[in-house]
């Protein structure tokens, strides 16, 4: 059972490290989907910038959180 639990945790952990960050990424993609169908290329650029931006934001937030521990 512990092996199955480890495997299940590993499978979920493949794509989810931080639930909030994953939710933000999915939200950006969903908003991007709507925007791309309406505005095309410029919306794609904004989506990529937002995805890159959240990487910086969450890495910094994680670093601050770990420094408090």
């Amino acid at each position: 059972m512990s092996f199955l639990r480890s495997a299940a945790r590993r499978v979920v952990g493949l794509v989810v490290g931080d639930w909030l960050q994953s939710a933000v990424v999915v939200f950006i993609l969903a908003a991007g989907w709507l925007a791309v169908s309406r505005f095309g290329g410029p919306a794609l650029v904004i989506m990529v910038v937002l995805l890159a931006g959240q990487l910086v934001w969450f890495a910094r937030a994680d670093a601050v959180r770990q420094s408090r521990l």
Partner: protein
Amino acid sequence: MGQQIFIFGAAFLGSAVESTEALTIVLAVGLTRGWRDPLMGAAAALLTLAVLVVAFGQLLVTTVPESALKLVVGTLLLLFGLRWLHRAVLRSAGVVAMHDEDHAYRQAVSQLGQAAATRDWVGFVLAFKGVFLEGLEVVFIVIAVGGAGHGFPAAIAGGLVAMVVIAAAGLLVRKPLARVPENTLKYGVGVILTSLGTFWAAEGMGAAWPLDFVSILGLAAIYFLASRLAIALIRRPALA
């Protein structure tokens, strides 16, 4: 052709990192408990992983429409790549200690010492568990990279070649491959997988990229710059 080479490269690098970690476990078990059972455990795990690749790969490619496949797999690959990239940023900035195969090896050996009084199949189970759990990430990379990009043969070849190269290196040196630049590799693969995921997710949305597949290089440059910015913002003296 360029796309197939890219898929091979991504699968090779991603699989090489995970194979190095799996090798450390098999070596730790083999060198402390004898080789027969750990090798059988590793082989059983590889067989199970191969079945997973074939079953899920075929299922995905044959049953899911292409645009949905690209959107879903692209999103999952993006999340997966970002997780690796996030970790790589924290390691490069000195917030999290670098992954050390020698340390992982010593830890595994010490755990085995504590388990020495238990039954014989411990070696088999430990090797199976280690290879299977590390291999799940390889399975994911191969299925995701190969499935969305119509490049299953290239992705499977990349994964297999990486595994054979790492296993051969492990056979030669008979100690953990501490010299494999695992942290740098994970950083690079994180950038590549995040870029591929973004590319395919957007294609699944119906977007058309300028210069088609070449756009991935632009995406990789953007994510690399973002990661360097994050590292510069949070940099600390490196942890041991």
